[in-house]
């Protein structure tokens, strides 16, 4: 009689996604390209913020956007109007982007331009405070948005999202005078679950905090793409761009 066997794997449950995410990141690194994954609940202001940031940062950073949306290309059209290449990724029923979807978006982007000519790739995720937190897409940095209209309890209700973020943007601060919300309490709850992240108050309407936010973005771009350079413009990749292979 054969005894039952047992293999101890200790393998990441999301190993298949993680493998593809690591593959994407390898390409970003080869292209010396910072990838930022922007996440929030629906309506927190991701697209409005990107409209402002793309327009402001375009003077010194070459950028493109992978735009995740469940059903429409409305956000992609808004961002394309800013003059930045945008690849829409329509997820259908999926409530988050995964690494394979982003890989597919990269292949479409490669048909339009050489990614090595870019400094920064934005991934605007599907509006959702739960699922995107667990699915890496190959990003170097995760940014979570929380609008003041959502209330101060969301970091406690959706702690994984805010724990995972490198930077949390408190958006729509121009509305604070009209709301019974204490922004200090929102900040305290963010820092309770993630004391190490950067927290910036911003308003895409009034422009409050955008300089700080853009300063953070530029600093991450330098740190990831040109870590040896202390000043000056970030270097571009000069090597031939590797072709992307979907694994």
């Amino acid at each position, binding site marked *: *009689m*054969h005894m*039952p*066997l*047992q*293999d*101890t*794997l*200790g*393998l*990441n*449950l*999301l*190993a*298949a*996604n993680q493998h593809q995410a690591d593959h994407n990141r390898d390409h970003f690194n080869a292209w010396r390209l910072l990838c930022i994954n922007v996440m929030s609940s629906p309506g927190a202001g991701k697209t409005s913020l990107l409209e402002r940031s793309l327009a402001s940062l375009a003077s010194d950073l070459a950028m493109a956007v992978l735009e995740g949306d469940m059903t429409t290309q409305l956000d992609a059209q808004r961002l394309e109007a800013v003059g930045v290449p945008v690849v829409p990724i329509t997820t259908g029923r*999926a*409530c*988050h982007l*995964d690494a394979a979807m982003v890989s597919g978006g990269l292949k479409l982007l490669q048909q339009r331009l050489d990614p090595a000519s870019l400094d920064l790739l934005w991934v605007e995720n599907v509006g959702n405070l*739960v*699922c995107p*937190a*667990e*699915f890496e897409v190959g990003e170097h940095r995760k940014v979570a948005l929380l609008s003041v209209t959502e209330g101060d309890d969301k970091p*406690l*209700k959706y*702690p*994984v999202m805010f*724990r995972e973020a490198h930077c949390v943007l408190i958006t729509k601060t121009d509305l604070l005078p009209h709301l019974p919300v204490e922004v200090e309490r929102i900040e*305290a*709850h963010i*820092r*309770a*679950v*993630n*004391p*190490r992240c950067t927290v910036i108050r911003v308003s895409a309407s009034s422009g409050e905090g955008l300089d700080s936010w853009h300063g953070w973005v530029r600093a991450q771009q330098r740190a990831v793409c040109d870590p040896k350079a202390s000043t000056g413009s970030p270097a571009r990749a000069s090597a031939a761009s590797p072709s992307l292979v979907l694994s």
Partner: protein
Amino acid sequence: MHEVDMTRCLLLSMNQWKQRHAPHTPRVRRVHLQVGTFTCVEPQQLLTTWRAAVQGSWLEGVGLVIDTVPLVGRCVVCNGTYKPDPGQAYRSPCCDHPLEEIVSGRELRIRSVEYSLDTATDFTPANPLTTAAAV
């Protein structure tokens, strides 16, 4: 319903694991997972999607055992461990410090696979939940 995508990842890993035993096809009894409570995974949803996903596949009838791992934090002020409470904003009860270090609770892991390479071995369905669903 991200548990669907998580199940898809799990099946891909299981198919890769199966290939390691080629030309034999291992007969799997149970797959053991570790899922932390500080993740976005609902274990019951994962069981439901697993039962649906394995129907008609080489894993049909295989039990999925999910060990839940509690969230435990370490207070970086006094070095003591504690169970963070959302009602207390996850702060340490000893020093009222934010949740800086997580000791456990972020696990999303395929821990082990119970199987046999002997086709004569009698494997009865192992997971009562899976068995109930099959009925």
